[in-house]
């Protein structure tokens, strides 16, 4: 079947999609967006976390057909989403490559992860970025308990949680300063 879905602001079309296929497979294998990672395929690890119509979900548990006509934001679209949220002029979808312009820089959450050294092997990072971004959009000044709760569905097998918590605190603190 064919699936039409808006991904990171651009209308995309995937053909020959198997009816039992997940949104994650479509993103990675059919639309060339490998940022969302495929690991447990059962919603345990959170490495495929994306936004579906604004809601945080595991892309491995959404059937591709359920995404028809909906809006998806993946880690590849975080910088643009952050720019749009800040009211800045995000690059127009048509003018940029599928995975965002190379020089477009990082979203504040991505920048904080880099600066805090919150990336080890990097496999869990995309899912954690999307989840952390969602938290900070809802709760600008989260407590440690808020952060732990918000990231409880994302596993880091390198066990780099302390730096990940540092990164979220850093992103929140920086956002607070600019207000």
């Amino acid at each position, binding site marked *: 079947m064919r699936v039409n879905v808006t991904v990171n602001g651009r209308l995309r079309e995937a053909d020959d999609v198997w009816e039992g296929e997940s949104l994650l497979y479509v993103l990675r294998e059919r639309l060339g967006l490998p940022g969302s990672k495929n690991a447990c395929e*059962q*919603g345990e690890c959170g490495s495929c976390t994306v936004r579906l119509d604004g809601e945080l979900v595991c892309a491995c548990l959404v059937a591709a057909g*359920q995404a028809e006509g909906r809006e998806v934001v993946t880690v590849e679209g975080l910088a643009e989403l952050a720019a749009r949220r800040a009211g800045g002029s995000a690059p127009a979808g048509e003018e940029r490559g599928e995975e965002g312009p190379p020089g477009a820089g990082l979203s504040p959450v991505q920048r904080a992860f880099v600066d805090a050294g919150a990336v080890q092997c990097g496999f869990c990072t995309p899912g954690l970025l999307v989840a952390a971004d969602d938290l900070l959009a809802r709760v600008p000044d989260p407590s440690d308990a808020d952060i732990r709760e*918000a990231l*409880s569905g994302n596993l880091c097998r390198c066990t780099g949680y302390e730096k990940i918590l540092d990164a979220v605190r850093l992103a929140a603190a920086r956002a607070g300063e600019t207000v």
Partner: protein
Amino acid sequence: MDFLRPGTWEEALAAKAEHPSAVPLAGGTDVMVEINFDHRRPEYLLDLNRIGDLYEWETGERDVRLGASVPYTRIMEHLRGPLPGLALAAHTVGSPQIRNRGSVGGNLGAASPAGDSHPALLAAGAEVEAESVRGTRLIPVERFYTGVKRNALEPDELIRAVRIRKADGPQQFAKVGTRNAMVIAVCAFGLALHPEARAVRTGIGSAAPTPLRARAAEEFLDAALAEGGFWDSGRDLPPSLARQFAELAAGACNPIDDVRGSARYRRHAVGVMARRTLGWAWDTYRGSERTTRCA
């Protein structure tokens, strides 16, 4: 495989009547796992995401009519008042990602003995609204679970909603697992005080082939509370009474040994949770009683 995408509830019922083998798909937190792991290859997937009615709820005089697909996140945000036990249970489901998609309708459809919402539904009192092109019937939740991952739905029926009694007293929920998030219950316990009916109701999860009420424990406690005048006095419950309630609750279990825990552990843990949830709920009841009487 065919992907059926009804736009309305009537279309969904018609599709289910035409293809009774169709597997309903809402949040996907159970069904997609089975498909991803090749454990299941249904002939038809029946996507219910486009049916807005299933995501709505109405609060009436006696019940909350909860649409089958209302995600746990919404229950936590909006229904803590009328459905405190279910809201507590919702908090323990998976992770934020799972709670944004998973729903009570899905829990009932899957009918796993470990489903988190079952003990809360049993304790509060609820009916499952099952519908087909032939009509609607209300199934009391304790009769809905018929076996391990089996329920009372006919092949052409879909779950439209769950009618859950609004709380008229304190409710509690407890669950045993290895961590706070992403845990399938080793076992779970729900308890609701119903001061208007002067009754206590319970629900046990993951300690028998189906979720079930601890009937003997409920009957014992109802009689003991009435006899001792506890509902009126709001007195502290004697430890011996709580202990016997716990023993009877543990006795209602019919657990198995599996990777998550042994039968012996489950039985013990259900007793502990029964005693604790009773203590917490009774403390809240006493608090409210004192406030009412002083005012």
